[in-house]
């Protein structure tokens, strides 16, 4: 009889044990899955940004009048729409977003710092002219001009950055970055191919 009572008591203590364990494990597991998804998304956006930077540089090095802005915005068409809402002051039809001249500001003049983002903007590009150690086409970069100006002539390098604003979804990732927002930055440098 005592044995039966004891068995009954133990059975009572086991009731819900799996549920409790599951409840305890689910939040960290879920967090972990979301963290993985978050990081994966961040890499995916980074690859998009790298593709956009590449497209912009390739357009920019063809000639000094080709539209870099359109090339950048058109590239990540799967992730970032080519709209003013997404690109803000460097969006389509804007003064900074249309890059067909070396004499007017082209791309974000602040180099797409975090302060350059406003409103719904989630993407930004900036470019600048860099001089090379040879003074012409060759050499390593010795210095770059201010953001916003493409080269007026050949014999320079064109450096272009694309930054994508990436708000982290999970608290885990948000804990690692200031304000819970990552600024994914990709840059490319090309030698102007026109003569």
């Amino acid at each position, binding site marked *: 009889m005592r044995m039966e009572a004891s068995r009954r008591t133990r059975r009572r203590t086991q009731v819900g044990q799996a549920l409790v364990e599951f409840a305890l494990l689910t939040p960290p597991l879920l967090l972990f899955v979301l963290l993985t998804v978050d990081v994966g998304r961040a890499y995916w956006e980074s690859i998009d940004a790298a593709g956009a930077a590449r497209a912009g540089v390739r357009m920019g090095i063809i000639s*000094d009048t080709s539209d870099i802005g359109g090339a950048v915005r058109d590239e990540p068409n799967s992730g970032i729409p080519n709209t003013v809402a997404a690109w803000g002051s460097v969006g389509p039809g804007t003064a900074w977003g249309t890059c067909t001249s070396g004499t007017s500001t082209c791309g974000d003049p602040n180099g797409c710092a975090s302060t350059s983002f406003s409103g719904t903007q989630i993407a930004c590009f900036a470019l600048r002219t860099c001089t090379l150690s040879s003074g012409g086409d060759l050499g390593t970069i010795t210095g770059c001009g201010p953001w916003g100006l493409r080269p007026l002539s050949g014999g320079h390098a064109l450096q272009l950055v694309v930054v994508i604003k990436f708000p982290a979804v999970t608290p885990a990732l948000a804990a690692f970055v200031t304000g819970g927002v990552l600024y994914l930055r990709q840059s490319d440098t090309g030698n102007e191919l026109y*003569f």
Partner: protein
Amino acid sequence: MMWYVTSRKRQSGQVLPIAAAAFLVMCALAGLAIDTSRDYLVKRDAQNAADFAVLAASKQMTLSGTLNGPVASNSNAVIAAHDYTTNNSFSTIYSSGCDAGGSSSFSTTWFDVPGLSCGATTGFTNKVSVNSPPVALPGAPVPAACQGSGQFTCIQVIITTRIAELFTSALGINTAYVTVGASAQAILPGSSFDAPPPNAVTLYQPQADCDKKLQCFDETKPASRALLSCTGGSNNCPTFWVRPGTAPQIYGYDGSVLSSPGDYTVLRSAGDMVIQDNTTICDSYGGATCSPNRAVGSQGFGAQAGSKIYCSAINGASAPTGCTTTGQSSLARIYSNETSWIPGYWYPTVDTSQLPYCGSLILNGGPMYGPCADPSEPYLIGPGFYDYIVINHGDYEFGPGLYDITGLAPVNTATSGFANGIDHSQETAAGDFDLCTGRTVTSCPVLTAGIWIGHGSLAYSAYQGPTPGSCTNGVAGSGGGGGDPTVISGSGVVFRFGSNSGGFVSTNEVQGLTLAGAGVGALASVNGSPLLFDMENNGFIHLDSQAGGSGVPPNTTSGIIYQTPNATGGGVEFDPSMAGSDVSGNELPAVQGQILAYTLTIIGSSGGTMDFTNGYGGGSVPGIGTSGRNENSIITSVTLKAGAPGFSILTVNYADEWMMDAYDVYVKVNNGSPQFFSQGIWTSPPGPATPLPPPSNNPGDAYPAYPSGGTPGSYTIISTGPPQGSSDWLYAIPGGSGATIEAKGAWTWGHHNDPRIVPPGRSSNYTASLIYTFPNPIGNYLSVTMFMLDGDRCGDYAYATYTFKSTGGPGPGQQSIGSVSLVQ
């Protein structure tokens, strides 16, 4: 019972270890996913770096001026490859320690750490290799453009980078290596298209062993030819024959403007030359001015040793051969300096694989028919395979593209109604040397060709005028055509005649013949060659027409007239008088370009030149949407010459039945924003995203305007004729550093000048010029695009691109911009 208790004990806390194990597995998978994503991102960055490095390197190859061998150690191309991988974060230590190769290849490798062997596959973070020519990589064979003769035009950059893994290192995978490669092809300025050496005339028929050849020149008999044949009867064909009354002027190319200057012989003949009228062969090297009856330049003509030159005198200081005067009559002078003969051959590359089959054509003024007809343009002949083409009557245009003629046209057998083949009845002994003299509709039953353009006497369909269309919403009208007079035009056309076909004949009865070959680099199927005729048989290309009237489109051909060097007969013959003259009475060139053929005979009457001084020019015909139609035949000639110091002048001459519309004329440089001639009257500058020209400012049918002193705008009005008359306005492009667009001749504002719309309108032939003057320092490379419209209601247009390097010299056209591109 004991078993029951034990089982319960085992279940206690079972979820936790399972979850912990699962957690570990999930961690491993998540780590693998993150590391893989990271690897992919680094690979993407490396690919970008390789792309930009190889492009920078190939630019240096282009600037080097030669692509005859592998890049050299420590050359700018190699340095650029290194620098641009470093500038894109894949830095290495530059060194020539791993340079290898010789005359057939070059390779080098750099690492980011010193002391590694050249073949090291580990121990570094970044490794960059350069190969010239490119080599195959796993899963990436050598690009087709970089094989064979193109191998030294290409360079390859390979980046291998080590990635320290974050998570998979727990599984023992501490690092991963990714390798990417990129190849690029460089194209030299000035030789970026497939073309023969710039000799104006190259003739193959040799004199040696004449008795063993099907076609040659028997020096014991007078030169003679009939019915497009050099065999049988009295036929006897010299390699170069100037017929009496023709007084030809053959002007060669100024090779000093090439990126690698060269003074090329104007006329090369492998056999005998019979000169029966004063003949000028001018070498314009160094910008020398050519004019009739003047020996200019040292490289006038060269004949193979053993050949005779039948002439009365050679007007030059250096004449190693001298004239032979025995055996031929009516001999005349050569005004040219003789030089040594250098053999040379060239073979075009023609790809007919994409051509549609179009059947055969016999046109007597009716609409084009068959599988290649365009219902919206009933008098436009489309490119493709044809058995043959006969045009006895009518106004037709050949659309841009390749025409491959495989057979021979039948001669007409009908005695009434429409001809069912070539109608020779109007050809005359006086006007049509070498053609039919029978004068009946069934004469000369075996005199044929692959394409025969003539003017018969049998029935024809009535001329159909242009259909104006609505001119709105992109609804175009159609061009007219057909009728009795034979008027043929074509721009960007190439005629190929297969081995079983014949040649091309345009008779003296043809009223209009304007054929422009493919623009430089414009037609991929001929490998970018500026080809017009490619005759792969022993036929004849016979070019003749009535002389064009003053101010009307000249009867002329431009492009390469080529016959295979494998030919054993046939050749080319043309009439210098067919082009007519401009409004000032200056004779226009009948043939612009080169001739490479078995023989060349100058027929007909004296007149314009065979002019190769301007090279080929270059034109391309991209599609563009307007309410008119693309009508590149309205461009009659293009010249490029040096202007004031530091400036070049591009002149595009235009002729059409309607005036030119200056309103929408624009110029683009390096594919930049268009600069409109009409900008001077725009009331306000349009915004960045608004269309150009601003629609609200665009005069058209509803808002015609005329050039007059009262027209608003900022132009320098050099002269203004009566409304719709001849005017000369100059517009300075704002911010153009001195660039101007000048519209000169019969032009007006707004494509409204159809007499049915704005009476009285104009419906005659008018000519005008667009003159673009622009800053262009010597050595500068430019691509200039001009867009122009004629003045009829719907605004037919022409659109041409000219690419060149400013040499500071007067030579146009031949120059073609160097370029680089990634290849796969």
